[in-house]
């Protein structure tokens, strides 16, 4: 599989000011692919020093 097989991305950030910096990295990995995307800013991830968590769902016909 590759980035083109990603159908959904869910992203959790802990600081709204990180959205722009995060999006720049994501854009580099996704290229021209545009999966469904949800981005949330939440109070904290499991450890306070973690700033971002990414979940993906990918599907591929065999």
């Amino acid at each position, binding site marked *: 599989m590759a980035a083109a097989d990603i159908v959904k991305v869910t992203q959790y950030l802990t600081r709204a000011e990180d959205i722009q*910096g995060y999006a720049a*990295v994501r854009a580099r*990995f996704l290229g021209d692919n545009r999966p469904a995307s949800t981005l949330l800013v939440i109070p904290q991830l499991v450890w306070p*020093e*973690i700033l971002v*968590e990414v979940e993906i*769902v990918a599907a591929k016909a065999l």
Partner: protein
Amino acid sequence: MTAELPKPDYARNMRILGHCDQGGRPDGVQIMVHRGHAYVGHMFSKGFSVIDVRNAKHPRAVNYLAAPPNTWNIHLQTHDDLLLVVNAKDMFAAAEFADEKAYYKGQLGNVVGTAERTSAARDWTAGLAVYDISKPATPQRIGCWLMTSGTPGLSAAGGLPNDIAGQAELAWQNVMNLLAKGRHGCGRYC
């Protein structure tokens, strides 16, 4: 065969018509029946079996499909001519559960390691496999659905950059590695 089976202690108003040893793997957990064939997910035998049940008095195992290493298929569902099979960690094959009682004690995430801080490599396959069962006895795997369990921006050694650019880079690199290599580094997902 039915004469050899023990009599039930409590069951009433039911009568055993036939019996099948599930192809020598008598540890079925979940059963779905479609087009006269039972799809049976195994607990200890991993994988799933297909049993022809069109003749209720003489059910017979006609196929067995093995799960990937350290993976079990205890949950499955049929929908029309599709069979959906869940791949998950084979809990009883894990060293953590050499003593089966450990499965029922403590917090499962801590026991199996999913609560650990590092993104250590896993030796089982997670996801949903999709089979075409238009020919009921011979399911054909036609697709898979890969679900990550969350990808924090951790390196394999557990290091964590202190800025968003570094963490995002690691998180997405982890995603790409998963997509490219699968859970086992062999390209197989489910």
